């Protein structure tokens, strides 16, 4: 079976991109290897680890369980777009640094894209809420405790702002 090419016009972190891709190209591979946005990581390609989590029209999704063609006409946010243009870290990025919420950092992008969306919906989360929201992202290094602390810290620094 031949791979047909498909036009994908998508906005990633506010920037328009247009590319022709194979129908079977995974969205994760498109972001990483076609657009060169390698901040999104890939750890399992079956939806479990959460490393590839991005935001698709504002909602966290697994980019390994979507096709690149499905980005056509949609907005995507990845870790590269989180910090301010002047390099100021997002409050959750800063909090992860302050609490030592990352070790190897391979799970971090997925956690950021999951938990920034979570904080937007839950500005004052409890620890059980945070752990529940985090449970779809595997981290093999930290044991999660410092990540949970970071989310709590970020929530308080954001002062309930969304």
């Amino acid at each position, binding site marked *: 079976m031949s791979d047909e090419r498909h036009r994908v016009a998508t906005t990633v972190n506010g920037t328009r991109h247009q590319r022709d891709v194979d129908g079977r*190209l995974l969205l994760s591979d498109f972001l990483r290897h076609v657009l060169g946005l390698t901040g999104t990581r890939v750890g399992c390609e*079956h939806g479990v680890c959460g490393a590839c989590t991005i935001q698709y029209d504002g909602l966290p999704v697994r980019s390994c369980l979507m096709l690149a063609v499905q980005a056509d006409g949609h907005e995507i946010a990845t870790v*590269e777009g989180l910090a301010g243009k002047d390099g100021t870290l997002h409050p959750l990025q800063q909090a992860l640094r302050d609490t*030592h919420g990352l070790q*190897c950092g391979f799970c971090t*992008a997925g956690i950021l894209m999951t938990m920034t969306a979570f904080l937007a919906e839950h500005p004052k989360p409890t620890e059980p809420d945070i752990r529940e929201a985090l449970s779809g992202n595997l981290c*093999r290094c*930290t044991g999660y*405790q410092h990540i949970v602390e970071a989310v709590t810290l970020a929530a308080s620094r954001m002062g309930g702002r969304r």
Partner: protein
Amino acid sequence: MVTRYLGAPITRNEDARLLTGRALFVDDVNLPNLLHAAFLRSPHAHARIKSIDVATAKQRDGVIAVITAADMGDYWRPGPLLVPPPPIRDIVFNQCTQVPLAKDKVRHVGEPVAMVLAESRYLAEDALADIVVDYEALPAIVDLADGLKPDAARIHEDLAGNTAAHVRQTKGNYAEAVKRADLVIKRRFVYDRGASSPIETRGIVAEWDGKADRLTIWDTTQAPVVIRNGIAAMLGLSERQVRVIAPFIGGGFGPKIMMFYPEEVLVPWMAIKLSRPIKWIEDRLEHFFATTQERGQVHDAELAIGRDGKIIGVKDVFLHDTGAYDPYGLTLPINSQCTLLNAYVVPHYDSTFTAVFTNKPIATPYRGAGRQHGVFVMERLLDIAARQLGIDRIEIRRRNFIGPDQFPYNNEIIYQDFAPLEYDSGNYGPVLDKALELIGYDKFVRDPTARRTDDGKHVGIGVVFYIEGTGIGPYEGARIQVQSSGRVSLATGVGTQGQGHFTSFAQITADQLGVDVRDVDVVTGDTDQFYWGAGTFASRGAVVAGNAVNEAAKVVRQKILRAAAEHFECAEADIVIANGKASVAGVSERAIGLGELAQRANPLRGAVKPGTEPGLEATNYFGPARGATANGAHAMIIEVDPATMMIEIKKYVVVHDCGTVINPLIVEGQIHGGVAQGIGNAFYEQLAWDRDGQLLNASLADYLLPTALDVPHIDSAHTVTPSPLNPMGIKGAGEAGAIPVGALFAQAIEDALDLPRHGVEILEIPLSPNRLWELIGPHLDKKEAGSP
């Protein structure tokens, strides 16, 4: 010198890059003309290969090459023996290292049989389906005891059986001593395999630059220098022609060590042959077969003990599953054998193991590296003894502790680093006390209401102790240089896998050189930046490389003092180094920036005194005489629902002693991560092999890594008994979190469900709700079990 950074919870230098997605991992390397590799892997655990037909695969569009063992000529060679067997009397060791592509036989599911190179990974995977291999299936050896039966199928046909090694180590005379025992306890303990499962799988990219005659390899390795040396030798290149870069690594935990995995050997070779860069990234399915695993031992252990609760001796005979090949020698079973002695005075010890080849992936160190098996056996034996002797389980441990005045304590057997197993220092009592205090032991055991929740859950408490041999040799090195900008650059040969080396090494340097920790730029894992080294394993990065950094920094400090003294024409003793400057004590206007001093030390004109080295730079090395022994106690309170056997950890405490702590934030992170992996090992992660050697749960949906809801909040504390074996007094902390968790689960769950009353003991790891039900269910009364 005032210590500023050492011991302080400094946030990490490397985080900014990691948090913004800029850090480079192997799969991020993108090169023009890149080819992608995929591997055809054996579907059988044990089979003879009768024929391989790659003709159709080669025809497929986008496929550049298909390689089998037959195409490899002289390059086909079994891999190196990474760790030779230690010098132990009468040792038997049968060396069978892994091959790059299976030739006549496959020995485990997932063993590579052919490599496809294509224009994309997608196309390469398509072509795998075109390859036709005719296999003749052979009986698979899955169970250890089965493998040793005389009529068992032989995995390596040139050997007489499936024995990979046989080792006996003794201390004292157990056979005599046992006669004096008041009580002898004999049990069989089973500790099963696990998969390291870093979130980043393995990967390698290789590029041959024909103009420069140089090979560059980006590799997810914990030991780039060793890989460079090995690959250069295999390819007939000089080490100077090969650069290995271990960029950011997404967790290693052991199996990313210098394995010379088939992919690591094949990708560079073909990159040179085809003059095109090649990438291979292990996918998660491959990780379950293509990356080494650990664990899998069966111990028949015997404890001889007096009525006073004092250990007289231990005898242990165990089988160790080495998998299909044994390239890592005997590190794992020797670790188990040595760590079994734990923190206790064991006057007589007789330990024998047989390592067995099985039709499973190769076993090599993974966090804990066999130590947890030894600790499990000893801790369980003591729990059983305490019960039978009517002694409190805490008290029996205390009675047997090696006393603080008994160090260095010689255990009279040989450790994995070939040195005698001698503990350098320790003070165990206060560690245990602190753990008891933090978990609230006395209150718990005295409170009759503590053992049941309102909704019928059973609550138990556990406390166990462990030691960890860390920081073994041979050596590491570091080069430190003050740049003319005043920033300091530091290079070492160890790889890093998230342990914060960019920060802890910077802290050591910053203190010695009086600079800001943010002004120290650390490079690890690039063989062009530092030539020598061994790698990150056995919790040795901080200990060995950390001390090398310290030694190099001290030399640079001396150079700064000398240069500044010359500059100000004063005595070295009058020079103060602080805030990036050298100044004359008490005369603050007489100060010079380190950058300027560095420039002056590298003059472009004029004569330099004979014997002077240019610049403010030094390289130094450190090799400890022996490993340093860390120790600690873990305690937890656990709730078990007797109806579902689901658990909830209500409180978890770690108290550890890893000597001098460079950065408590980083050490705490190491402990948390270790405990999380220990919890996975104890209750969630089990590789389910069927009788044919097929893995039934090769996905992260069914091989259960603990989530944020499964790992509890961990309270940790530490005591400090510096190691006398290195100037900084550091001991490793990398594996401490993981080692005693199995023993702790067994004890705490037994306690919660009051198992001894039912005549049930937990003698195995991993556990699961299902396994607990099998063990305990029949003994529970119906009401308790929630049965209708």
